[in-house]
């Protein structure tokens, strides 16, 4: 019984995954990212976290993993050409984070555009 239920659940969640549209990642402005895509996909959070402690606590400036630079390069324009904020589904961070249902805490304090 339990096994059947489990199989059903797994099947349903896989089905759900297949149904949800794959995220379409918006183009960035810059030529290339500060790290290769693979590293950014898996480790952007560690990079940002390391950077945040370095900048705020140690006072190191001008290093390459700054949230501000990410947002500038990855700004998604709206119809008027203005960058959209985190409340917008199209925001660069939202595209994947919405898909994966992972809450972002950054923009509780940081401005998102």
């Amino acid at each position, binding site marked *: 019984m339990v096994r059947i239920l489990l199989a059903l659940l797994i099947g349903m969640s896989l089905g759900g995954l297949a149904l949800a549209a794959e995220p379409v990642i918006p183009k960035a402005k810059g030529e290339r990212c500060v790290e290769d895509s693979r590293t950014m996909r898996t480790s952007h959070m560690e990079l940002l976290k390391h950077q945040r402690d370095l900048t705020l606590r140690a*006072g*190191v400036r001008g290093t390459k993993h700054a949230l501000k630079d990410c947002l500038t390069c990855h700004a998604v324009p709206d119809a008027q050409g203005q960058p959209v904020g985190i409340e917008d589904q199209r925001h660069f961070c939202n595209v994947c984070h919405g898909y994966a249902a992972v809450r972002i805490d950054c923009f509780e*304090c*940081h*401005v998102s555009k």
Partner: protein
Amino acid sequence: MTGLSRRGLLLGGAALSLVLAPGLTLIAQARPAGRPASAAQRWGLLIDTAKCTADCTACVSACKTEMGLPDHGRPATDAQYLRKVSVGNPANGVERSVPVMCQHCAKPPCVDVCPTGASMKRADGVVLVDRHICIGCRYCMMACPYKARSFAHEAQSGQRPHNPRGKGTVEGCTLCVHRIDADRLPACVEACRAQGKGAMLFGDLHDPQSEIARALAAQPATRLRADLGLDPALRYRGI
């Protein structure tokens, strides 16, 4: 370590910039990219209250604009990093207007009491709140003798990029670290020069050649609540 030669460089730079552009910049040079703040410096302010008039609020407005502090029309809960306190001497009726903000203590009680280490002092003496790990307990606000901190009582939007601030965390004057690190004066000091009477002097207390250190050597100044022994980096004259 390169501390010694770097210090020499800084001293030279300071002297040079004073000669070349007096009044324009007081900081030797922006810290190069990738270098942490150093304990060789200690940023401080000297405020001459004799030059500060009660009707001038240039520093306060500049602070609010620079840090993106909104006015919700709720004075009891709205954030204020910098305020002007009118201080009257009942004995002789002399009244002074005194800008008060985080005093950037050498021994900050807010840092002592913070359970997570969010309340912190940078190597160059600037006292900050690391809002990434602030849990909003407000113990630092209980401990601060200067009432220098505010609590973000509501959700925020449209923050300035250099001053991230959010609901449920504590905040206060950063001495404009984002400006200091880029070789610029804190917003209040700049505004006081431009629109006020230049009552605020910013600089490195550890550098004996700096204008602030020489001014302090020439004529003594007071610390607020010096009796508490916290050694603030803000000094006042004329109180």
